[in-house]
């Protein structure tokens, strides 16, 4: 990787000359260094908030994120600006990690990343086309909607049954197939 960065340095210097012209020698060298620093900073540094995004306003350039659990849960408002990376990963109702720095006593987002769900051991991911194939092939399988009951009631994939995280213990024994080798496919409201 390091070699790649070194190779990129001349490119950035050239690119910055193209943008700024060659008359401002000092400033163009300074800006030539900058992209390399940014390219190196692949792992965001600094403190972060992890939790569900509960609000996003592009007009006020603020993201509200809920952190902590139970009684300790609190909503924090984080500002962002044009330098914040990955703002598109902050969407209401989805889990995110927001790296931030303090400016004037207020947290400012530097990088926003989606907090991806970890796949449990022995479980594989399928995409929409594979699910369509399974449904069309009339394979014997059970499709499980893991969203809350109200969301399931409002609309779900044809033939799915509702087994949520909270209801699993109560209902799983009654609705899951007796044959433990039967294919089970789970889905919910998105990748987080």
């Amino acid at each position: 990787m390091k070699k790649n960065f070194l190779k990129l340095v001349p490119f950035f210097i050239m690119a910055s000359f193209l943008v700024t012209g060659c008359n401002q020698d000092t400033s163009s060298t300074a800006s030539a260094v900058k992209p390399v620093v940014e390219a190196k900073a692949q792992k965001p540094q600094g403190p972060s908030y992890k939790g569900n995004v509960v609000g996003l306003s592009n007009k006020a350039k603020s993201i509200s994120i809920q952190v902590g659990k139970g009684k300790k849960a609190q909503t924090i408002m984080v500002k962002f600006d044009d330098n914040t990376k990955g703002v598109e990963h902050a969407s209401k109702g989805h889990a995110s990690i927001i790296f931030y720095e303090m400016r004037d006593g207020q947290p400012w987002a530097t990088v926003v990343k989606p907090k991806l769900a970890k796949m449990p051991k022995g479980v594989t991911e399928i995409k929409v086309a594979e699910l369509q194939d399974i449904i069309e092939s009339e394979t014997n399988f059970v499709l499980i909607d893991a969203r809350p009951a109200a969301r399931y009631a409002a609309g779900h994939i044809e033939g799915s049954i509702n087994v949520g995280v909270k209801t699993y213990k109560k209902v799983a024994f009654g609705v899951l197939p007796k044959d433990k080798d039967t294919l089970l496919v789970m889905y919910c409201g998105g990748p987080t």
Partner: protein
Amino acid sequence: MSTKVAGSAVKDGYTNVKVFLDGEPAWIKAGNVFYASKGNINKGNIVLIDLRSNKKSAAGRIARSVTLPYADDTFDDNIEEIPRKAHIVLYSDSAEEATDAISDLRDEGYKKLALVYGNYAGWVKAGGKTISGPVTTEINWVRILGKGEVGKEDFLKAATGKDTGAVILDVRTADEVAEGAFVNSIHVPLDAIGKNLNKIPKDKKIYVHCTTGARADMAAVELNKNGYKAFFFVANIDCDGNECEVED
């Protein structure tokens, strides 16, 4: 959530567990449809639309349906009347017609859409309740206020000064406010709330608004965290001078 349920199933001994991680949004994006549960069709706060002809609908339809026949364009002509924030459930006697209607609504930007399993015949076969008699095209849907929301009536009472126990807090930007605002309102942009709490009275209810409700929601959360009794107003608001159009 799907991964947690998958983990539980693996723990219980299931050997062939897969997760469709992209889930609901990807399913809809691929052009597929969703189906509503029977309980939701019977009692949910939905708009239920019968796409069949008036004649067929009068002879028998699912209770609470409005009849907007698809074939004679009544449906398309009345699409504007369908509330955008409602969950909409459609049925017909043709699967193609029902999915066409879903596509039309999606093109118009509607999001919460579902069908009835097996359309009208499926409903009857499943023993679902039906009614007959003169049909209606009038949609009587009222959005149920979410947690922490203030309703239009209460909001307007405060905005017109009739309710002195509540204050309107406008969290739009200074540029937006320059175009116009409610007469009886305090203005603090969302991103400046934390630094301007002294401008907001603590002894009154605070009704927060912006242009849609998104920023108002965030501001109300922030205020309630600081010991206020704040509620947010979900509505499209467009002000010109002291005249504000409110569409909830």
